[in-house]
Structure formats: C-alpha cells, structure tokens
C-alpha cells in the first residue's frame, strides 16, 4: 500500500512534485477496461479488518480511515460486510462527554475524538485528561453513524452544538480543536456538515461563516482554503458545499434564470471546467497534474451547480481507470500504489459518473444519498 506521507485532511495539497516522473508501477499489465467492483470490495474488507502498518502515522485520524472504509462499502453496495451495531458502538465510544452543563461554554469541544491517542478513560476521581474532540472526526463519526442506520436523535447533540460555537472564530472561520490549530475552509465545511446532519444550526453563526467563505473566492473564480490563497479544488468544494448545506445557494443554480448570486457563478463554472485536463482527469489547480481525488472535489462542485453534464465523462472514465489498482482501490496518479483516501474519492467519482452497481452520491455531504436522506 502507499508508503508516502499523506493526511486525509490534506486534499493532497501540493504533493505532486515529489512523485512527478518517478511513479513506482504496481504492475506492467495494461489497466482494466472496467470498474472492478469485487476487487474494491475486497480491498475495503481488508482495511475494515486490519490496516497495514504504513497507516500507523494516520492513527490520529482513525475515525476518518473508518469513514472511508465504511462509507466506501456503502457506495459499493456492500454494507452487508459490516457489523453495524459493532461499528456504532465503537464510534460512540469516541464521543467526549462533559461532566456538567457548565463545562460546555468554557471552551472545550465535546464532539468526537479521532483516535484513542487523545482520549483517556477518567481516573478514580472521574476526571478525564484534557479533551480533544476534533471537528473532522466529529463529521466522520456522524457520517458513519448515519451510514449504519444509527438514530442520531439519541446522541447528546446538545453538547456537540453548544460547544461547537466555541470553535468558531471572529472572522467566521473554524478551528478544528480547542487547543489551537490552523483555521481554514475545511473546518467551516465540517461545521456546516455537522449542523446539517444534526438538523440544527444553533451550533454556528451561518452569516459569519458565509462572509468568510466569500472572502476566499479568488480572482479566477475558484476558492482558496483561506482568503488570499490560490484557488484549489478542495477549497472550492468546501466553499460551495458549505454554502449549499447552509442554504445560501440553490440546487442546480445553472438551470435557474436568476442571475444574481452571492458568488461569481459564471467565473466559478469556467474555472471548474478548465480543471479537466487533456488526459481526461481533473487537476486541483491550474497547470498541475491530474489526480484521482479532484474528479470528486471538482466534479461534486459541478454537480451542485448543475454543470456536471458539461464534462467529458468518457475521458474522465478512461483516466480514472488508469488509477485503478490491481490490489483494489485507487491511486493518486496513474499506475501507482493505492491508498484508502484516493480509493474513497475514486468511488465517489465513479458514483458521480453513475457507474452501474454503485449507490448514488449526495455531493454536498460526500456520502451516499441514502445515508444523507436517512434510509439505510
């Protein structure tokens, strides 16, 4: 499996340069001419049962790895491989619980830990070591629970929502953990998705979040991860999906005759369209190599806007197949080793392409439609 350092939260920002010109071919045989569902199910089942040691550096994002695996199986209509009750119990064990209501406003975030690394059982006095609930882990936790059909109304959502507010910054952005970390559009997205899944917007100031998002639109129409930064596929997804989830942009904008919008839609559309490269794949930024995952990040933006129909699906399909691994899963670049992150976004990309045998996708949540709506 993949040995290079990567972080599922990175959207593979800028990693291309390390590998350009030196991919290690996993096979000299030509790529399969079809999406090999069985192979991918086997890949995910293997991950579900045991992940290779290379993933130990991702221990802190354990819940994210679980999300890719379980939601991946659901996309492939193979959720029967999973013990749903066992998964729900395991995920719930990561929830941080306040000792009293008063604690909710102090500053800590009572969402979900991503890993046992930051979670300790309470000592004899019932005191837990410092809490470190994380926004991205919370998004993944809720997504997994929904995927396995767990009723989110039964969890302590109040603690999550009241303490979620502690993470929002004066400029509208979000910090992922209360102890301090970078703030950018990824976490605005996580916050919006959390509120959306819990069906309760009291957890964030949507107006302020919207203002921050708008500041991230670059002169070329795409969105950077922070105001002033280069427009980027991952940033653009987070911006557009958040606005959609929060209700600031309508579904299928492009088919409406209404011309005014809070974002520059024609420029955004043109930027997205230019991200499909000659090899059929999608790039994350202008003049960068095509990478599997942008078929989702950019493709999903186009789907939300109502412009997915404009892309060259045949060319994209062909490119993605060159990234399909004989081990199952997908790699970042053609004919390279697969990893769970690119596998997942490869599956979401094939779902957008309406590959037979895959469940349809809810673009703005990054999971199956069935999960989003609440049907198992």
């Amino acid at each position, binding site marked *: 499996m993949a040995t290079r350092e990567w972080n599922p939260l990175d959207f593979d920002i800028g990693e291309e340069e390390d590998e350009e010109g030196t991919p290690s071919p996993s096979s000299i045989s030509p790529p399969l001419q079809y999406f090999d569902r069985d192979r991918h199910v086997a890949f995910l089942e293997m991950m579900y049962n045991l992940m290779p040691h290379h993933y130990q550096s991702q221990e802190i994002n354990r819940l994210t790895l679980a999300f890719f695996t379980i939601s991946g199986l659901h996309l492939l209509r193979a959720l029967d491989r999973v013990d749903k009750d066992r998964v729900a119990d395991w995920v719930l064990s990561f929830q941080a619980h306040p000792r009293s209501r008063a604690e909710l406003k102090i500053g800590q975030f009572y969402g979900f830990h991503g890993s046992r690394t930051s979670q300790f059982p309470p000592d004899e006095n019932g005191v837990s070591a410092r809490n470190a609930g994380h926004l991205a882990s919370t998004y993944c936790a809720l997504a997994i629970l929904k995927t396995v059909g767990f009723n989110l109304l039964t969890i302590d959502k109040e603690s999550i929502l009241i303490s979620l507010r502690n993470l929002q910054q004066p400029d509208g952005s979000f910090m992922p953990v209360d102890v301090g970390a970078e703030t950018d559009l990824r976490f605005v997205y996580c916050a919006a998705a959390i509120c959306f899944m819990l069906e309760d917007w009291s957890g964030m100031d949507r107006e302020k979040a919207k203002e921050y998002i708008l500041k991230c639109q*670059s002169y070329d129409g795409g969105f950077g991860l922070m105001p002033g*930064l280069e427009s980027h596929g991952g940033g653009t997804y987070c911006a557009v999906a958040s606005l959609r989830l929060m209700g600031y942009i309508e579904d299928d904008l492009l088919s409406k005759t209404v011309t005014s919008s809070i974002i520059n839609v024609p420029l955004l559309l043109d930027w997205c369209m230019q991200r499909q490269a000659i090899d059929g794949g999608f790039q994350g930024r202008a003049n960068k190599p095509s990478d599997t995952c942008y078929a989702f990040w950019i493709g999903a933006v186009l789907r939300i806007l109502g412009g997915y129909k404009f892309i060259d699906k045949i060319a994209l399909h062909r490119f993605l197949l060159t990234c399909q691994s004989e081990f199952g899963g997908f790699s970042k670049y053609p004919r390279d080793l697969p990893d769970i992150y690119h596998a997942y976004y490869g599956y979401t990309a094939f779902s957008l392409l309406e590959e037979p045998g895959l469940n349809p996708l809810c673009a703005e949540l990054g999971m199956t439609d069935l999960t989003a709506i609440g049907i198992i």
Partner: protein
Amino acid sequence: MDSREDDGGEPLSRMAEWRDVTPLPQDDGPNPVVPIAYKEEFRETMDYFRAIYKADERSPRALRLTRRAIHLNPGNYTVWHFRRLVLEALNADLDEELDFLQRIANSNSKNYQLWHHRRWVVERLGANARAKELNLIKKILSIDAKNYHAWSHRQWVLQALGGWEDELDYCQQLLEEDIFNNSAWNQRYFVVTRSPYLGGLKAMRASEVRYTVEAILANPNNECPWRYLQGLYKDDIKALVNDPEISSVCLKPCHEFRDSVVALRTSDTDPLGPDLSMAICDILEHVDSLRASYWIWRKNKLSVAAV
C-alpha cells in the same frame, strides 16, 4: 532521521531514563474497526507518550519523547500541542525550536501541524523572526515552488510581520523560472492588491496589464495570465472591455485559428455583439472538444440573451 539524534532509537523500555514510567497501552476497546498493524517502535513510543501526557509531565525527557513521537506520526496534533506546553513550561529557547523545525522541514513540508507549530513559535519571537522565516519559506519553495502550505505561511508572515518590500520582485523571479506557476501568479495578485507600498490595484493596473499581456503573447496557451488579466479588472469589467490593447490581444490570431479569427475581425458585426461571441463558442466547440457541451450551452445562453 532526526529522532536518532538524542537517543539512538533504542527501545524506551530498555533505557534507564524511563525505568520509572509505566507505559500506558492504547485501549482500542472490545471490537475495534480498522485496527492498524502498528510496528513495535510505534506502539512503544505512543504507550510512553500516553503515560507522560496523562501525568502531564513537562520535563526535558518529555520534550525528547515528543520529538520521537512526531517522527513516527507527524500529523498527531495532540503530540504537537503537548510539545508546546512543555516548551512553555521549560521556557525553552525558541530559536533552537525553529532550528529543529528547519531540520525536519524537508520531509514534513506538507504537514499542517508542523506549519502551525512554526507559526506558534514565530508569533512568540515577533518581528525579529521575520527575515529568517521568509528565507526558510523561500528554501522550501525552491524545492517545490507550488507548496500550498509554504505559500499559506508566507502570506501569514507578510500580513502579521510585514516584509512586503521585496515580494513583487520575488514573484517576478519565480515567474521567470516558470511562467506556468499559478501559485506565483496568485502571490503576485496578493502583493499587488494588499501591499502597503504599492498603492493598490487601480494604481498598479497599467503596469500589471503590460506585464500580463507580454506573458500572454509569449505563451497564449497558459491559463494563468488570462485569469490574472481578468482579475486586474475585478469589479470593473467595463474598463477591461474598453481597453483596445486587450481586445487586440484577445483577437490576435493564433496560427491554428488564423482564418476563423481573420474572418471575425473583418465582419461588420459589433465587436462586443452576441454574433461574435456566438461565433467564438462555435470555434471553441471544435478546438476545445473536451468542453464541447459547455461551449454549446454558453452559446445557447447568449442567443437567449440576445432575444
């Protein structure tokens, strides 16, 4: 790697220094999902880290332990956070911390936690750290001129500590090295619009347009300067449309399309009229066939608007 510097990479359980500590194993619970096949070194290091973290021991050996843990999982924000607590408790030399970060920068140049930690250190050192910081970022960018984290950090340094004076020249240099570098174009826009020394977008527009047009003519198939040109006229599209230099650049025939464009130029249609735009969509539908559906849709929108 770096962790070897201090302790030779020996197992902690065999080191006298750690004899008094009982490692705290990870409690994965009864039915863990996606369990990871940890290597022994990883498991042991994190067991000791858990023990120290739970005991909240902020000592020199704790500092060394965080270095080892960072080496094994540099994305672990809990470890980095604890390292900061220890640095504060020990009143550690933060310049030395910057040196440590510099040594591990190359193999962690795309790690959010490292850059955030760097920012934390620089915030405490203040304006004195500025020159060193901008220099380090240049080094990282010389290896990978599009490193998103490096650019993000650079923008933060400029806004928090200043140093704008040489930035436009730096962008110029990067663009001379690679005119296709979109990060450099973006930084140029950042500088032109925000530098307190340049007077803002409107003041810079004329010279920037000249620069951009030159870049377009040198490589008309480079998306960056086209986008940049449009960006120079943000919120002022009329000025762009009315600039004769720009329309001549846009209609300048590339050899593949010479005939079609010459035909367009010599027709009596209003240069800004829908007929010209629709004709361009027709051309694009054929020469940019990857986006054929998109150009057809745009042409249809124009014909609807023209009615």
